């Protein structure tokens, strides 16, 4: 009796193991991918989860686990994970200001050989370049972004204005009228917190005033000309009482909330605000929000700051093929057109496509603004270290603790320590 049941067990085990191994040979090995992205601007976490679900359905052997962090934690989280060379992430969301640093510290993969001719021909070349270091590419752009001027049509109409301001001076004049007529206490709100956020607003103003932050050879430009004019403009709007004084503690999300509460008439912010500020579920001013290209500074033309981000393959990924498949899917024209109101597609042809799932004004405004867009000085590998010092210098000038000239010449001195 015992012997017989033992024999049955052995036979069963053999059959089972044959069945299992043959099953494995037919189907590809199940793979789990770890991706890190942000829960903030651009694609919402709900939309990213939808995209990933679709990818999972099309690739049943690949499971994707997504980690969402605030933008402010993204860089440090990636660094702590990948610096050891044994990171858990396969696909990482990389801001356009990080590739030089990440490539130098060997955290992301060179994917030059993976870029297809279709990508070369179809993707906006300026965008494809955000993840290029030298002649190598370290990722594919996923989020196309630049800071637009959002304004409250109803508030402007109450003050007798029918069009968006074309220059920064015009914007301040309008803001002063709004304040005088008690339509809005602090008509302009900015993201001037001690974070990368202030650098984005600052860069857009500097470029609009014809200045520059750092020259291509790494020397300081922020202490002269248009850059100094931009800083003085920022200080003046605070002194005139048209800038919300709490801007010094605000990130982009805070700016969006203040604007959506109907407590500001103007703000600079990323693409995603257009949809959210016009959504009654998250905004008290839905339907009153309009979008315009960035105003111009005095001497030059208007230049928008670029704030695009891309997807990279982590150096330590054990599944580069599957991870690359995910990147190709997420950055594909079809996927990007579907979620275009969060972030417009990186594909040139998609902007004119009839099935572009985004408001017409958004694509039209982008087309105007994208004629002149410039990034922050991401070409230096010490940009992030520089940025932390620059944020403090800018805030010191804004708080009146130092003159613009003194704060910027101190920053020139600080540059020596960050270049190390």
């Amino acid at each position: 009796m015992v012997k017989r049941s033992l024999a049955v067990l052995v036979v069963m085990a053999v059959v089972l193991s044959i069945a299992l191994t043959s099953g494995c040979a037919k189907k590809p090995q199940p793979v789990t991918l770890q991706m890190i992205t942000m829960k903030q601007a651009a694609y919402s976490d709900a939309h990213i989860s939808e995209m990933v679900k679709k990818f999972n359905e099309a690739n049943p052997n690949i499971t994707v686990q997504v980690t969402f962090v605030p933008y402010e934690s993204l860089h440090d989280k990636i660094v702590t994970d990948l610096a050891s060379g044994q990171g858990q992430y396969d696909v990482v969301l990389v801001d356009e200001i990080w590739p030089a640093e990440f490539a130098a510290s060997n955290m992301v993969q060179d994917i030059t050989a993976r870029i297809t001719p279709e990508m070369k021909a179809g993707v906006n070349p300026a965008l494809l370049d955000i993840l290029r270091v030298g002649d190598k590419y370290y990722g594919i752009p996923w989020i196309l972004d630049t800071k637009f001027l959002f304004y409250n049509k109803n508030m402007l109409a109450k003050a007798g204005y029918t069009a968006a301001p074309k220059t920064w001076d015009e914007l301040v004049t309008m803001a002063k009228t709004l304040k005088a007529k008690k339509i809005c206490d602090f008509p302009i709100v900015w993201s001037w917190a001690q974070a990368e956020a202030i650098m984005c607003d600052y860069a857009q103003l500097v470029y609009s005033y014809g200045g520059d932050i750092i020259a291509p050879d790494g020397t300081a430009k922020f202490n002269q000309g248009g850059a100094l004019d931009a800083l003085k403009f920022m200080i003046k709007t605070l002194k005139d009482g048209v800038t919300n004084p709490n801007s010094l503690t605000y990130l982009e999300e805070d700016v969006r909330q203040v604007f959506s509460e109907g407590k500001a008439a103007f703000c600079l912010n990323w693409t995603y605000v257009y949809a959210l500020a016009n959504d009654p579920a998250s905004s008290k001013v839905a339907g009153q929000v309009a979008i315009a290209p960035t105003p111009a500074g005095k001497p030059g033309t208007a230049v928008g700051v670029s704030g695009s981000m891309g997807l990279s393959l982590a150096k330590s990924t054990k599944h580069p093929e599957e991870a690359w498949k995910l990147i190709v899917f997420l950055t594909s024209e079809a996927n990007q057109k579907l979620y275009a109101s969060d972030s417009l597609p990186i594909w040139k042809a998609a902007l004119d496509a009839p099935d572009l799932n985004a408001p017409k004004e958004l694509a039209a405004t982008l087309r105007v603004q994208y004629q002149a867009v410039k990034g922050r000085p991401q070409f230096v590998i010490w940009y992030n270290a520089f940025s932390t010092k620059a944020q403090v210098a800018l805030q010191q000038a804004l708080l009146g603790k130092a003159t613009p000239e003194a704060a910027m010449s101190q920053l020139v001195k600080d540059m020596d320590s960050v270049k190390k």
Partner: protein
Amino acid sequence: MSLRLSSPNPRLLRTRVGREERRLIVAFLVPALLVTFGVVLIPLLEALWISFHRYSLTTPGRPFIGLANYSSALVDPGFWAATWRTVYFTLVSTGLELVLGLMIALLLNERFVGRGLLRALVLVPWALPTIVNGMMWRWIFNADYGALNAILLQLGLIKDYQAWLSSPWVAMNCVIFADVWKMTPLVAMLLLANLQVIPAELYEAASIDGAGPLGRFRYVTLPSIRSGILVSLVTRTIEAFKVFDIIFIMTRSGPANGTQTIAYYAYTETFTALQFGKGAALSYLIAVFITLLALVYFRLIREEVQA
């Protein structure tokens, strides 16, 4: 003292039972030793080794530079500014937590209806995770839709909404306030435990000797809870000196570095600037400061035990 009592009798070790006991002792100690060496000591020594090198993620090579990381930190005005800010944070927050904690403990030690419920409620702020506490106060202090402005305006204490977190010094005090709100209950509970074991006879005797309420507090209560005060002082000072999380959530060290403490400074140097060598050196400097504090307190406690 206790160490000698628990160590095995050397004569016993030579017997069969003794050998078995020794094996057992070794077997029990090995996991603890492995954990201590693997998780604490080895990383600690490795960090010390790294702190003698220029270890930047973005530049290849890791040259030995001796004490250069330490000296560059010690001559950096930013380092000292962060240190003094940390000292301010530590002194004010620990001081307030102690005074308020003592007052709450004295109140909760009295007999009144609902005392049990109140004792439980007092602990709520301490039970909240720091992230929740930080977010909550960030909203309360918000200049445009925060509760603080609304309340103060309705009470007629301010005329216009104030931008609480926009000025460096005010922001620092706002962060201290949030920390005090969270940590006072812990101090109160520690002191309450001390208060509860003071014998009622002591107070009776003091009353008979003619001591009023203040006299009883000065000569009976305070001496009896000295050890409780010391314990809360030690734990809170050292915790406050390492403060990071609540600042990360509320102000991210801004505005203009106004709330940048020394732990935050080390974090920025390490993870934003990717200077791991300097970061390790800074961690050791923080450790030195805390050791100095600990030594002072250790002496105080020893005097306490001897007295």
